[in-house]
């Protein structure tokens, strides 16, 4: 059989060529590869005419075609036809897919060259680009103590391996601890989560470090050295019995993070009664004693019968060695003040989803009674303030606006995935607690995609909730009454609806810490800021850095069941490396020469 004559054809699609790819350099590189007789750039979104292509193939006597593009599959049909017309082998079409194998690298052109070389040599990229094996330290670091971090830590610890769980806030539990109910089963979120939190605390294989942050990671896959800053808590974890005496006497109040700022906490506080570790913490920024350099207040120290408060505490740096790291840094919610038209921040009874979660939660500031904000005189600040008073007026009508900050090119173009379902859950909770209240859902598309979700949607409609297709454009206040203007698309009318309370279904955004960690560890992020998984379909927990895995919302918006599933999967990936005593180096560290050499060897055999 005569030698193949290979033609390399570059095509790009959609929004033009990837600006970070140097197509000129790629073309030069391709021309120097063995057996390549023709290199051509066919342009952006070319309309390929098989007849014309066939003529070209015949003229250049091309017997094998390599289509090189971010998504080359799109152009394959035209080349198959052209090859058949030219009398060649229609099967001799190879794809060099830059997007599939090259996403998010620092030097995408080098990676694209490697992809191209493999296609020309007819070696599957996955076989040539195999990171070298590396020995693995048996301990694991989990960053983030939400449901994802908790689940992953428990899975690994239960298998008998040591886990360091690092959490930035004073307690583990994350956002899930704030929720009232889970959808679609309407289980009590705390009833599911708190036993897991306690299990983490009591587990012999888990070393829990709350109020701590990862400061520096050095070393290599399988043998990371991690510096963790344990922030001064000023409260002895072992001595504190969470009796609340200190908090009761503390004169300083500030917004409670756990209650989404709809209630107040003291400067020495416990985020919520079931917090793990079950101990108080001092908020140094608000504490009079610490701010005054120890000259004022100090009431809590005198009050504490266990001598648990130590204002002389300093931050501590702990160094640990681990083999694998699981990132579970979670999310924060979209800042609704950015969408001025909904009046959030100005109109007291326009509130966000997390605020409503706390409002309707039995452990929240109103004991789970859904009330409107009412004006009260604050004796301390001597100002009128809008607060949720458990005896305040109940709303007679509640509107829920979907897609706030999501699916919107002015904010976040992606779907946050959880908002439709939690909004339906809210509607149910409103109807359950306030039977006579009217409840409206303003949605664009109802994304009830999971098991039991569509059924839940049907159930909500049967409960008498008005589900309106059409997103509301603005909320305004006239004489103390909120009005919401929107188009009811199915009823073909514009509605100007007076309501007592508006809930904004805010979307999810990556936690701010994700940016720092991404830089520290070299884990690339997607356009939305989410961690880039190594393969969307087949390796959703791995990353292109060896020994680093992702779990939960930090990889992309998802609900609790999906988060838990991914966390368990990440734990399994980690355990695999520990049990085999062998992990792998970073895929992204593979050089062009390494991949080329390996491909050449494989091609020979």
């Amino acid at each position, binding site marked *: 059989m005569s030698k193949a004559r290979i033609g390399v054809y570059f095509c790009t699609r959609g929004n033009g060529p990837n600006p970070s790819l140097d197509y000129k350099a790629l073309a030069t590189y391709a021309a120097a590869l063995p057996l390549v007789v023709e290199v051509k750039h066919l342009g952006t979104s070319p309309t390929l005419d098989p007849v014309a292509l066939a003529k070209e193939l015949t003229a250049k006597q091309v017997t094998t075609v390599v289509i090189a593009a971010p998504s080359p599959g799109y152009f394959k049909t035209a080349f198959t036809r052209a090859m058949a017309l030219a009398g060649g082998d229609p099967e001799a079409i190879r794809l060099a897919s830059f997007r599939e194998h090259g996403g998010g690298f620092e030097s995408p052109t080098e990676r694209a060259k490697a992809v191209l070389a493999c296609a020309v040599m007819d070696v599957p990229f996955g076989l040539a680009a195999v990171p070298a094996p590396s020995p693995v330290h048996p301990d694991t670091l989990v960053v983030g103590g939400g449901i994802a971090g908790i689940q992953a830590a428990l899975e690994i610890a239960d298998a008998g391996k040591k886990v360091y769980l690092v959490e930035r806030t004073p307690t583990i539990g994350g956002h899930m601890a704030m929720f009232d109910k889970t959808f679609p089963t309407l289980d009590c979120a705390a009833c599911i989560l708190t036993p897991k939190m306690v299990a983490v605390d009591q587990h012999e294989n888990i070393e829990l470090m709350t109020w701590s942050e990862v400061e520096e990671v050095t070393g290599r896959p399988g043998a990371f050295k991690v510096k963790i800053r344990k922030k001064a808590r000023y409260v002895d974890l072992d001595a504190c019995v969470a009796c609340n005496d200190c908090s009761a006497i503390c004169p300083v109040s500030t917004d409670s993070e756990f209650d989404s700022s709809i209630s107040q906490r003291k400067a020495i506080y416990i985020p919520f009664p079931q917090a793990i570790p079950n101990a108080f913490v001092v908020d140094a920024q608000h504490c009079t004693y610490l701010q005054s350099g120890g000259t004022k207040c100090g009431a809590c120290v005198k009050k504490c019968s266990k001598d648990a408060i130590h204002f002389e505490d300093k931050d501590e740096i702990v160094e640990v060695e681990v083999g694998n790291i699981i990132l579970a840094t979670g999310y924060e919610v979209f800042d609704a003040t950015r969408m001025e038209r909904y009046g959030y921040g100005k109109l007291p009874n326009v509130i966000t989803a997390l605020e409503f979660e706390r409002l309707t939660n039995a452990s929240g500031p109103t004991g789970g009674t859904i009330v409107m904000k009412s004006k009260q005189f604050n004796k301390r600040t001597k100002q009128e303030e809008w607060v949720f008073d458990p005896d305040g007026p109940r709303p007679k009508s509640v509107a829920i606006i979907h897609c706030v900050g999501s699916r919107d090119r002015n904010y976040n173009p992606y779907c946050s995935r959880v908002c439709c379902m939690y909004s339906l859950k809210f509607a149910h909770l409103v109807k359950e607690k306030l039977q006579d209240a009217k409840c409206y859902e303003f949605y664009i598309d109802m994304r009830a995609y999971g098991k039991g979700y569509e059924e839940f949607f049907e159930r909500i409609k049967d409960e008498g909730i008005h589900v309106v297709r059409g*997103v509301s454009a603005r909320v305004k206040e006239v004489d103390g009454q909120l009005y919401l203007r*929107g*188009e009811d*698309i199915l009823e073909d009318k*514009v509605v100007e609806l007076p309501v007592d309370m508006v809930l904004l279904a805010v979307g999810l955004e990556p936690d701010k810490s994700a940016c720092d960690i991404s830089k520290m560890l070299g884990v690339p992020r997607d356009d939305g800021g989410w961690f880039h998984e190594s393969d969307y379909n087949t390796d959703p927990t791995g990353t292109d850095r060896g020994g680093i895995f992702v779990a939960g919302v930090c990889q992309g918006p998802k609900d609790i069941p999906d988060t838990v599933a991914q966390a368990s999967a990440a734990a399994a990936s980690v355990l695999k490396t520990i049990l085999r005593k062998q992990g792998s180096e970073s895929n992204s560290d593979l050089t062009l020469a390494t991949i080329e050499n390996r491909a050449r060897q494989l091609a020979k055999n």
Partner: protein
Amino acid sequence: MTVQADPRLVAELEIYGAQDVLKCYHCGNCTAVCPFSKAPFIFPRKSMRYLQMGLREKLKSNLEPWLCYYCGECSEQCPREAEPGETMMSMRRWLTAQYDFTGISNLLYRSWKMELLGIIVLAILTGLGFYMFGTATGDIHKYDGPGAFLPSAVIHAFDWTMATILSTFLLINCGRMWWFTMGRDPEHRATPAMYARRAGLLLLHFFTQKRYSECDRKGPWRLHIVLMLSYVSMLVLIMFFLPMMQAGPAVNWWAHAFGYAATAGLLITVAMALWGRVQKSATHYKHSHETDWIFLIMLFYVALTGILQHACHRLGSPYAANILYLAHLMGVVPMLVLEVPFSKWAHMCYRPLAMYFSHVQVDAMAAKESAAAETLPA
């Protein structure tokens, strides 16, 4: 009635300036943002739908594009960046072409080269005609009085002839607009009494653009009303007082004061609009169709040459005044012939008519409903 869907409709509207129509996912935000969107005229989302579905006839009988004044809020807040405001604008261009029975409008909107060619041909014809007439009957060094190069009486007669012809075209097109939006649809059939009762709206909206003033943003309306009043003043002066305007060289403050004010109004507002479009300083200036540029440049040119020929005459240079007068006419004639019945100027009729028709439509539908209610058994 069968409904036909035309999959090429979006592509057709794109020639008229529509953008990103297919991006729309029908959230209804644009409609809810719009202060004018009230039943039964809910827009712009529904018009986007008609367009996406290719409902040509539905779009043709749609008054809604004329009820929109393009404040741009819908486009700014569109989560899909689908530019509903610009789509409404392109629908107005498209509707202008649909109302026009000659097909000239269609030609002008589809190809700016055709429009430019039309302007040039008309300008040359006008220039040659008046030059030959002027040199045959008068003296190019004489601006007014006996033996003038372009005597005001002749120009006056010419103006009236042209006005009559152009108005006829425009009236026929208005008649077609009535047929598409009112006449042919039994739902919208109204009695003469209904038309009579609302007739006042026509004048009101023509002279005040009251609805435009109700937009949340007042700036564009202010500019537009100054431009429109300046233009109308100039039109009245020319159509009725041309001999007085052209007499001189003394300044006749009775007529000229209005003339100066109107010219200043035109030059300033048109310059502002042009500058806005260059800078893309507002949403409604962001996308400019070729016809927008041609229209504004022509208007500026005409106002400028008008005042310059006047100034030259007053400053005692009849030769320069005559040349500039000729140049002025070479701008005025193509502008009016092409723009009034066939292009952007036509909106001075279509907009007030749409306001008027929309009220009559509501009355007609209400009457039908109450009649239907009466016939129902109790």
